[in-house]
Protein backbone atom coordinates (compact mmCIF):
# COMPACT_ATOMS: atom_id res chain seq x y z
CA UNK A 1 0.00 0.00 0.00
CA UNK A 2 1.68 3.18 -1.18
CA UNK A 3 1.91 5.99 1.29
CA UNK A 4 1.92 9.67 0.42
CA UNK A 5 3.97 10.37 -2.71
CA UNK A 6 5.48 13.78 -3.44
CA UNK A 7 7.28 15.06 -6.50
CA UNK A 8 9.83 16.28 -7.21
CA UNK A 9 12.06 15.41 -4.26
CA UNK A 10 14.36 18.37 -4.80
CA UNK A 11 14.36 21.45 -6.97
CA UNK A 12 16.17 24.73 -7.30
CA UNK A 13 14.40 27.88 -8.47
CA UNK A 14 15.43 31.47 -9.00
CA UNK A 15 13.90 34.31 -7.01
CA UNK A 16 10.77 35.60 -8.74
CA UNK A 17 9.97 32.34 -10.47
CA UNK A 18 6.93 30.15 -9.92
CA UNK A 19 6.90 26.54 -8.74
CA UNK A 20 4.40 23.68 -8.61
CA UNK A 21 4.73 20.80 -6.18
CA UNK A 22 2.67 17.63 -6.45
CA UNK A 23 1.22 15.16 -3.99
CA UNK A 24 -0.62 11.86 -4.24
CA UNK A 25 -2.34 10.92 -0.98
CA UNK A 26 -2.32 7.54 0.66
CA UNK A 27 -4.82 5.15 -0.87
CA UNK A 28 -8.27 5.79 0.60
CA UNK A 29 -7.43 9.21 2.00
CA UNK A 30 -9.44 12.13 0.67
CA UNK A 31 -8.05 15.07 2.67
CA UNK A 32 -4.71 16.66 1.79
CA UNK A 33 -2.80 19.20 3.84
CA UNK A 34 0.39 21.08 3.03
CA UNK A 35 3.05 22.17 5.51
CA UNK A 36 6.22 24.25 5.17
CA UNK A 37 9.22 23.23 7.27
CA UNK A 38 12.02 25.77 7.34
CA UNK A 39 15.47 24.61 8.40
CA UNK A 40 15.59 23.96 12.12
CA UNK A 41 11.88 24.62 12.61
CA UNK A 42 8.73 22.60 13.04
CA UNK A 43 6.30 22.31 10.14
CA UNK A 44 3.84 25.16 9.65
CA UNK A 45 0.36 24.63 8.23
CA UNK A 46 -0.23 26.18 4.80
CA UNK A 47 -3.70 24.89 3.86
CA UNK A 48 -5.95 21.85 3.69
CA UNK A 49 -8.07 20.54 0.81
CA UNK A 50 -11.14 18.36 0.99
CA UNK A 51 -13.62 17.64 -1.81
CA UNK A 52 -11.56 19.88 -4.11
CA UNK A 53 -12.13 22.91 -1.88
CA UNK A 54 -9.71 24.77 0.39
CA UNK A 55 -11.06 23.94 3.81
CA UNK A 56 -8.70 25.89 6.03
CA UNK A 57 -5.73 28.16 5.49
CA UNK A 58 -2.78 29.05 7.65
CA UNK A 59 -0.96 32.36 7.85
CA UNK A 60 0.58 32.34 4.39
CA UNK A 61 0.30 35.00 1.68
CA UNK A 62 -1.79 34.65 -1.45
CA UNK A 63 1.36 33.73 -3.38
CA UNK A 64 0.71 30.27 -2.01
CA UNK A 65 -2.19 28.56 -3.72
CA UNK A 66 -3.34 25.02 -4.19
CA UNK A 67 -5.62 22.66 -5.95
CA UNK A 68 -7.14 19.26 -5.35
CA UNK A 69 -8.19 17.02 -8.20
CA UNK A 70 -11.10 14.53 -8.33
CA UNK A 71 -8.67 11.66 -7.63
CA UNK A 72 -7.70 13.50 -4.38
CA UNK A 73 -4.20 14.33 -5.56
CA UNK A 74 -3.09 17.89 -4.94
CA UNK A 75 -0.76 20.64 -6.10
CA UNK A 76 0.88 23.47 -4.24
CA UNK A 77 1.79 26.53 -6.29
CA UNK A 78 4.03 29.31 -5.13
CA UNK A 79 4.37 32.49 -7.21
CA UNK A 80 7.03 35.19 -7.11
CA UNK A 81 9.42 33.06 -5.12
CA UNK A 82 11.42 34.68 -2.34
CA UNK A 83 14.63 33.46 -0.78
CA UNK A 84 12.63 32.85 2.41
CA UNK A 85 10.46 30.31 0.62
CA UNK A 86 13.37 27.88 0.72
CA UNK A 87 12.13 24.98 2.85
CA UNK A 88 10.97 21.40 2.94
CA UNK A 89 7.36 21.24 1.77
CA UNK A 90 5.42 18.37 3.27
CA UNK A 91 2.18 16.91 2.05
CA UNK A 92 0.00 14.97 4.47
CA UNK A 93 -3.17 13.00 3.88
CA UNK A 94 -5.92 11.81 6.18
CA UNK A 95 -9.53 10.79 6.40
CA UNK A 96 -12.05 13.29 7.84
CA UNK A 97 -12.40 12.83 11.57
CA UNK A 98 -9.35 10.62 11.83
CA UNK A 99 -6.70 12.49 13.77
CA UNK A 100 -3.13 11.83 12.74
CA UNK A 101 -1.80 12.42 9.26
CA UNK A 102 0.33 10.29 6.99
CA UNK A 103 3.15 12.48 5.72
CA UNK A 104 5.13 12.24 2.52
CA UNK A 105 8.90 12.57 2.41
CA UNK A 106 8.64 16.13 1.19
CA UNK A 107 9.98 18.34 -1.57
CA UNK A 108 13.12 20.29 -0.77
CA UNK A 109 12.81 23.70 -2.47
CA UNK A 110 15.84 25.94 -2.70
CA UNK A 111 15.38 29.50 -3.98
CA UNK A 112 18.54 31.22 -5.16
Amino acid at each position, binding site marked *: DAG*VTQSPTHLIKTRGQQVTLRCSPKSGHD*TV*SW*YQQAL*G*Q*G*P*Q*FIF*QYYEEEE*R*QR*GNFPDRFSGHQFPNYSSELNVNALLLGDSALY*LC*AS*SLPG*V*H*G*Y*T*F*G*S*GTRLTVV
Partner: protein
Amino acid sequence: AQSVTQLDSQVPVFEEAPVELRCNYSSSVSVYLFWYVQYPNQGLQLLLKYLSGSTLVESINGFEAEFNKSQTSFHLRKPSVHISDTAEYFCAVSTQGGSEKLVFGKGTKLTVNP
Protein backbone atom coordinates in the same frame (compact mmCIF):
# COMPACT_ATOMS: atom_id res chain seq x y z
CA ALA B 1 -4.78 29.96 19.16
CA GLN B 2 -2.63 27.06 20.19
CA SER B 3 1.12 26.92 20.74
CA VAL B 4 3.60 24.18 21.54
CA THR B 5 6.88 24.55 23.38
CA GLN B 6 9.52 21.86 23.24
CA LEU B 7 11.83 22.76 26.06
CA ASP B 8 15.00 21.14 24.74
CA SER B 9 16.31 21.68 21.22
CA GLN B 10 18.93 18.93 21.58
CA VAL B 11 19.12 15.90 23.87
CA PRO B 12 22.27 13.72 23.76
CA VAL B 13 22.11 10.38 25.59
CA PHE B 14 24.05 7.13 25.70
CA GLU B 15 22.64 3.91 24.33
CA GLU B 16 20.42 2.00 26.79
CA ALA B 17 19.91 5.11 28.94
CA PRO B 18 16.42 6.46 29.65
CA VAL B 19 15.26 9.63 27.94
CA GLU B 20 12.51 12.21 28.36
CA LEU B 21 11.62 14.78 25.70
CA ARG B 22 9.54 17.57 27.13
CA CYS B 23 6.51 19.20 25.54
CA ASN B 24 4.18 21.86 26.89
CA TYR B 25 1.22 23.33 25.08
CA SER B 26 -1.08 26.29 25.38
CA SER B 27 -4.71 26.29 24.27
CA SER B 28 -8.00 27.84 25.33
CA VAL B 29 -9.92 24.80 24.06
CA SER B 30 -9.53 21.05 24.43
CA VAL B 31 -6.84 19.55 22.25
CA TYR B 32 -5.54 16.32 20.82
CA LEU B 33 -1.82 15.68 21.24
CA PHE B 34 0.71 13.99 19.00
CA TRP B 35 4.36 13.04 18.78
CA TYR B 36 5.94 12.69 15.35
CA VAL B 37 9.45 11.46 14.51
CA GLN B 38 11.53 12.62 11.55
CA TYR B 39 14.58 10.68 10.41
CA PRO B 40 17.18 12.48 8.27
CA ASN B 41 15.93 13.42 4.81
CA GLN B 42 12.52 11.92 5.46
CA GLY B 43 9.00 13.08 6.22
CA LEU B 44 7.27 12.80 9.57
CA GLN B 45 5.99 9.55 11.02
CA LEU B 46 3.29 9.44 13.68
CA LEU B 47 4.76 7.96 16.85
CA LEU B 48 1.77 8.15 19.17
CA LYS B 49 -1.29 10.24 19.92
CA TYR B 50 -3.64 11.13 22.74
CA LEU B 51 -7.26 11.68 21.80
CA SER B 52 -9.18 10.62 24.92
CA GLY B 53 -9.30 7.96 27.61
CA SER B 54 -6.18 6.77 29.39
CA THR B 55 -3.69 9.60 29.78
CA LEU B 56 -0.77 7.22 29.15
CA VAL B 57 -0.29 6.25 25.52
CA GLU B 58 2.31 3.91 24.09
CA SER B 59 3.97 3.30 20.74
CA ILE B 60 4.97 -0.04 19.27
CA ASN B 61 8.69 0.73 19.61
CA GLY B 62 8.79 1.36 23.35
CA PHE B 63 8.03 5.09 23.60
CA GLU B 64 5.28 6.36 25.85
CA ALA B 65 3.78 9.76 26.61
CA GLU B 66 1.54 10.97 29.38
CA PHE B 67 -1.06 13.69 29.00
CA ASN B 68 -1.11 15.96 32.05
CA LYS B 69 -3.96 18.44 31.73
CA SER B 70 -3.15 20.42 34.86
CA GLN B 71 0.43 20.99 33.72
CA THR B 72 -0.53 21.21 30.01
CA SER B 73 2.23 18.77 29.20
CA PHE B 74 2.71 15.72 26.99
CA HIS B 75 6.25 14.50 27.67
CA LEU B 76 7.70 11.62 25.67
CA ARG B 77 9.70 8.92 27.45
CA LYS B 78 11.61 5.76 26.69
CA PRO B 79 13.25 3.65 29.41
CA SER B 80 16.13 2.43 27.22
CA VAL B 81 17.10 4.03 23.90
CA HIS B 82 18.85 2.53 20.89
CA ILE B 83 21.17 4.06 18.33
CA SER B 84 18.32 3.79 15.83
CA ASP B 85 16.20 6.20 17.91
CA THR B 86 18.45 9.05 16.78
CA ALA B 87 16.07 11.46 15.03
CA GLU B 88 14.15 14.70 15.41
CA TYR B 89 11.00 14.50 17.49
CA PHE B 90 8.09 16.91 17.12
CA CYS B 91 5.22 17.49 19.51
CA ALA B 92 1.99 18.78 17.97
CA VAL B 93 -1.57 19.70 18.93
CA SER B 94 -4.86 20.01 17.14
CA THR B 95 -8.15 21.29 18.46
CA GLN B 96 -11.00 18.96 19.28
CA GLY B 97 -13.81 19.46 16.81
CA GLY B 98 -11.50 21.32 14.46
CA SER B 99 -10.14 20.55 11.03
CA GLU B 100 -7.22 18.43 12.27
CA LYS B 101 -4.79 21.24 11.51
CA LEU B 102 -1.61 20.55 13.48
CA VAL B 103 0.42 23.14 15.35
CA PHE B 104 3.98 21.88 15.86
CA GLY B 105 6.74 22.67 18.27
CA LYS B 106 10.22 23.46 16.98
CA GLY B 107 11.44 19.92 17.56
CA THR B 108 13.97 18.13 19.75
CA LYS B 109 16.99 16.49 18.18
CA LEU B 110 17.66 13.22 20.03
CA THR B 111 21.16 11.85 19.53
CA VAL B 112 21.92 8.40 20.94
CA ASN B 113 25.64 7.74 21.34
CA PRO B 114 27.27 4.33 21.71
